[in-house]
């Protein structure tokens, strides 16, 4: 748990089995009001299955899901918005007709014009659903998810197929929703997206939630060291001499290692390491610094890349 606030949605020991295959295996988490919770994992990790069980689209094999502290009921559908990863829209309808159709399915929807403006759909309104691009379709699907002014919004890989500008625009929408106190649950393959948008990130693999926390906390917990790379043309003994005083009790970390292309050095304190190298007159013109990311956390936890 990363917050002491009362959870809007909580799941306990959630399982989804397909025969002997366990798609989701004992996931528990709690999502407080007003945060953006990111669920990260490679393909097949169980993210979409987990999120679809939370959405009540997929039945659960065992476990419990509570919304506002109680089992989900018909009100749940009125108060959530969902953007699916892959979904088709009714054929032969225009964007405007599609919005009106779904708008009419809610008891107390948001003003349609506001949603159209928020998702920048004004110029697409008369366009046939089949004649819009992948990115435009994602914007329309997002608009459909927001029509009922939901308290809880599920976004399953919402920026897939979007160009960088459209992705940035979606990020702005997510931030605007957060600022209005909405709670979001997001899955993504994009590290920068998760770091930019998510207050809490859960990392899944093989149907299990491996860990969760804020991006900086996860990085600090699993990959606390900055890595320095220097070329092989330098003398290794000079490098070792320059940095040997940094952590005499922890030589396992503060040891220069020869890799295929460069010398490699890990440190928890970048400034201290740089000062030591400069004091040792080490030329730093070819120095490369690698700051750990969520990708490194992911590699550390699963041995796999997030994009696999």
């Amino acid at each position, binding site marked *: 748990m990363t917050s002491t606030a009362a959870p809007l949605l909580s799941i306990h020991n959630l399982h989804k089995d397909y025969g002997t295959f366990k798609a989701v295996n004992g996931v528990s988490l709690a999502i407080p009001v007003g945060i953006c919770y990111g669920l990260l994992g490679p393909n097949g990790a169980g993210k979409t299955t987990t999120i679809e069980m939370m959405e009540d*689209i997929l039945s659960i094999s065992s476990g419990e899901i509570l919304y506002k502290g109680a089992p989900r009921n018909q009100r749940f559908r009125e108060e959530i918005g969902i953007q699916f990863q892959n979904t088709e829209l009714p054929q032969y309808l225009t964007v405007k007709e599609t919005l009106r*159709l779904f708008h009419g399915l809610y*008891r107390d929807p948001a003003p349609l014009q506001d949603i159209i403006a928020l998702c920048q759909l004004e110029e697409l309104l008369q366009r046939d659903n089949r004649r819009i691009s992948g990115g435009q379709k994602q914007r329309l699907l997002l608009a459909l998810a927001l029509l009922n002014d939901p308290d809880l919004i599920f976004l399953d890989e919402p920026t897939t197929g979007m160009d960088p500008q459209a992705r940035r625009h979606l990020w702005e929408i997510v931030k605007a929703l957060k600022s209005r106190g909405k709670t979001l649950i997001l899955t993504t393959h994009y590290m920068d997206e998760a770091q930019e948008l998510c207050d809490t990130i859960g990392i899944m693999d093989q149907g299990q939630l491996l860990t969760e926390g804020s991006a900086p906390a996860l990085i600090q917990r699993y990959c606390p060291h900055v890595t320095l790379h220097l070329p092989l043309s330098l003398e290794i003994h000079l490098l070792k001499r320059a940095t040997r005083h940094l952590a005499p009790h922890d030589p396992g970390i503060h040891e220069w290692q020869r890799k295929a292309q460069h010398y490699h050095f890990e440190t928890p304190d970048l400034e201290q390491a740089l000062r030591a190298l400069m004091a040792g007159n080490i030329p730093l013109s070819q120095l490369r610094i690698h700051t750990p990311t969520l990708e490194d956390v992911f590699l550390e936890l699963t041995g796999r890349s997030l994009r696999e």
Partner: protein
Amino acid sequence: MTMLKRMWHLFYARNLEFLRDRDSMVWALVFPFLLLMGLYFVFGQNTTPPAVKIGISGREQATWVERFQKLSQVQVVALSTPKEAQQKLAHHGVDLWLDTDPDPPQYHISETAPKGYLAERLSIYEWERRQQDASQQPALFQRKSLTGEAEVPYLEWFFPGLLSMNLMFSAVFGVGYVIVRYRKNGVLKRLAATPVTAFEFLGAQVASRLFLMAFNTLILMGGGVLLFHFSVRGSGLALAALFTVGSTSLIALGTLVSARTESEELANGLLNLMTFPMMLLSEVWFSLEGASPWVQRLAWWMPLTHLVKGSRAIMNDGAGLQDIQSHLTVLALMTFLFLSVGASLFRWQKR
């Protein structure tokens, strides 16, 4: 109120989809006209197709062709050689072959051909009877024809069955396929993310199809009146009520079949499995009078049977609402059953 609002939006969207799907739309509009044209071509000259075909070969062919052409329900085919004649008979090209070379002439039938016996009765026996009449032997039976209101011309008897069958295909396939397609491409999954219930969704599909079918049936009825001068002898209100309830039950049957089906191929098979027995056993083409009791009991469970019987009672026999109450009740119960089971089995998305 909210339920009706949702159903209205789904109904409206489905109608828009249908109206813009030009291929389906054109077919739905053209099909009744094609059907009428086909009927007019076959029945328009007040002739009916012959019941049997008789092949005649041999030296006396011309004489016998002339004689048999005077018989009703018999089509005569002149055949050049006995070999050709035998082959036609074996392959059911003709129902009876008369060889005029022997004295007396010989006729051949295939014992396994369903129409062989009928051909024998209508041609050989009929000819012999006429010969006996000509020899002034007293008749055993006196012949009387139905006249006036009591007579229902064949085409007028057939037309309600045709209308009902058209309703069945339009209802069952029109809704079943759409739902399976929606499930396959994820539209249903998107709808499942909203507060729409299975009953609301299915109800809207039923209403939308019903609307289209009413339009379609009006074209067929109008064509029937204009081309064949049909009239509805009974209550128009009763007919409208029967077609509405009957169509609803058939659409509901389509929704039941598609409640869980994920592939169009399987849906096609299941829908055919439903419609073919109905087409054969609901008395659209022939009466089940005298058929074994279990066949008649089976037919009773088919919605098309009640639709056909009810519409014939109104259109042919002048029945009113009271007279077809039992058919209406059965169809309404079937609608309730199909929709309830369909809604409870309904699956929004693929497994």
